């Protein structure tokens, strides 16, 4: 009974998304392609339209579920939500496909040329479904395997974001939010977004993730990460928390003095804790997990006014955050003699 209902709902949602994709493509996208002489991208644009439609549905569903929970069971009580507004912009830019569009226009041709060149000289992809043919006939099995592989890569990618100094300066845009909410997941520097897109697209291509499944994987990952950042008093229980990254687990990653700062536990080596994207298993395996510390204030230490911090400005608006992030990164990349005092963020790799 439940299965039948679930299947019916899933089919209805798929059809509704498909209908919306067709409508948007036929009404707006394809006429523009035709008018402006981009018809060689016709098929790719049709696929791209799905990202926009599915992203809009995802944002709506996330908002309808998580926002009431934030209102009813907040972990932190804020005087107002002004600081959250900019994160809404980040979310819309990211999940409605603008970042993807830039990636598609700028990086995709380079990707295609690189792949063509590698193939011509006999360097082929490592398609997982060639090693495990059952993945082709059992879509769910394939989905789970791709999810685990991408999540494992995501764990290490995330650690590098904290460990590599210039990269941390970009990633600090994400960590500079002191009011974590359902909108915070996409608060990233655009350059960081582009790097992330390129990394995961290359990996997906290398292991042969089917394009349709890549959309589903991205949507599912995005929804769970929105939940992780939500301002909700929610626990998954001792077992659930070890199965899936919970809001409590991820909030500790954002915590001042714990998640991305030297000095906590073994963080002198790891530059933080709880790096897992969807599964905490990798943190448990590589000894970077912290399940015990209670919730702490979030942000970056040097944002705090003296004497706790240095009152460093990470920007309030979108452009200020982007500009300051870029400036911090450039300073990190410049020779040490040109570094001015207090020019870099004080946490993680910046210390």
């Amino acid at each position, binding site marked *: 009974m439940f299965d039948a209902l679930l299947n019916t709902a899933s089919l209805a949602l798929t059809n509704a998304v*498909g209908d919306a994709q*067709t409508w948007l*493509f*036929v009404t707006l996208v*394809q*006429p523009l392609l*035709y008018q402006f*002489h981009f*018809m*060689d991208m*016709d*098929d790719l644009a*049709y*696929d791209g339209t799905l990202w926009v439609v599915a992203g809009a549905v995802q944002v709506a569903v996330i908002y309808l579920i998580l926002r009431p929970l934030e209102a009813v069971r907040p972990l932190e009580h804020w005087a107002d939500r002004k600081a959250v507004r900019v994160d809404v912009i980040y979310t819309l830019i990211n999940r409605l496909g603008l970042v993807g569009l830039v990636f598609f226009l700028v990086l995709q041709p380079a990707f*295609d*040329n690189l*792949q*063509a060149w590698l*193939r*011509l000289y006999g360097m*082929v*992809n490592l*398609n997982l*479904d*060639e090693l495990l043919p059952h993945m*082709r*006939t059992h*879509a769910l099995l394939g989905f789970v395997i791709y999810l685990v592989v991408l999540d494992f890569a995501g764990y290490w990618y995330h650690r590098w974001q904290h460990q590599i100094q210039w990269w941390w300066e970009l990633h600090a845009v994400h960590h500079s939010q002191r009011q974590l909410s359902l909108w915070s997941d996409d608060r990233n520097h655009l350059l960081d977004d582009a790097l992330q897109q390129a990394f995961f697209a290359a990996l997906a291509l290398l292991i*042969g993730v*089917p*394009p*349709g499944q890549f959309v589903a994987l991205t949507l599912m990952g995005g929804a769970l990460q929105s939940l992780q950042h939500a301002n909700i008093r929610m626990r998954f229980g001792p077992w659930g928390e070890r199965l899936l990254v919970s809001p409590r687990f991820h909030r500790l990653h954002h915590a001042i003095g714990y998640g991305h700062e030297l000095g906590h536990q073994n963080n002198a080596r790891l530059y933080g804790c709880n790096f897992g994207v969807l599964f905490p298993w990798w943190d448990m395996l590589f000894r970077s997990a912290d399940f015990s510390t209670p919730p702490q204030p979030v942000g970056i230490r040097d944002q705090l006014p003296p004497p706790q911090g240095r009152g460093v400005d990470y920007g309030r608006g979108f452009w200020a955050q982007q500009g300051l992030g870029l400036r911090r990164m450039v300073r990190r990349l410049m020779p040490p003699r040109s570094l001015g005092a207090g020019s870099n963020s004080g946490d993680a790799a910046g210390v």
Partner: protein
Amino acid sequence: MRRQFLKAAASAALAPALARAIPAWAAGLPPDVVVVLNSGDATISLIEQSTRRVVQTFPVGKEPHHLMATPDNKLLIVANAVGNDLVFLNPISGQPEGTRAGIEDPYQIGFSPDKQWFLTNCLRLNRVDLYRYLGGRSLQLVKRMPLDALPSHMAFTADSAIAFISLQQTNEVAALHLPTQTLLWTLKVGETPAGVWLTPQDQTLLVALTGADAVMAVDWRNRQVVKRIVTGRAAHNFRSMADGRHVLVSNRVADSISILDMQALSKVGDITGLRPGPDDMELSADRRWLWTTFRFDRTVGVIDLQARKLVDVIEVGKSPHGIYFYDRAPFYDNLSPAQQAHVPRAA
């Protein structure tokens, strides 16, 4: 198997009403299936022709775009562009019979009329791979020819000397000389060329412009565009009407199919009121029913060519592209009946 199929076909011809009421496979006969490639879902939909119902959907591989039968008509080849493999089906029942891995980016495929060559257009990798066809499922890679950019459709001259390849990004058609495996020439034809088609006796090369509303008629021997035939927006792919004179061309933005006179090099009619993105087409042996995939509608349509009207729409998977059925009208206009028997169409 073949005899059973003929029995089923005879029954359907004698008693169409009965055939519609009782699905062929329910009566213990092999289904007269239409094979549809859902390129966006990585699946195949099998539609029973007589009832026009989807009777089976199964996974086939990543991005199956085009399909065609082997020269002996014993196997149907599905080319998985992103899967980098070929899947072999029974051409009558549509059931899988094996896979050939290691065929890189086979977006479009084609056999030369002399059955010596099997070509794959690698759209994503910007090259054409030439395989020697050794019969059955045996292919031997002979040459990889880089060809910028976006090689998409192909057509062969009847003597198998030349393969014409449309290049969607550079707005050209390339002529490959098969005996020497060399590029003879390229010719600018217009925006985003897709389908390429040779008229009877290889007289004229027709090139459908998906970036425009026209088919270009090319005197390929003199490398000259001789006429621009206005069709509908985003002319895309061809299918013979098997009458020696007319060819159909699908228009992906106009949502129509134009009928061209290959002698007069002019448009003589349109089939309008279709669903979004008509693409590949297949014609019944009696020349009455035209099946077409609607790329952006997740459906397949059946058009009554007598009435020039869409009479049935069948829901399939995402981004349906190639379509095939066994009992069909001859596909090519430039090949003799004997060659047609051995060289089924490229969808």
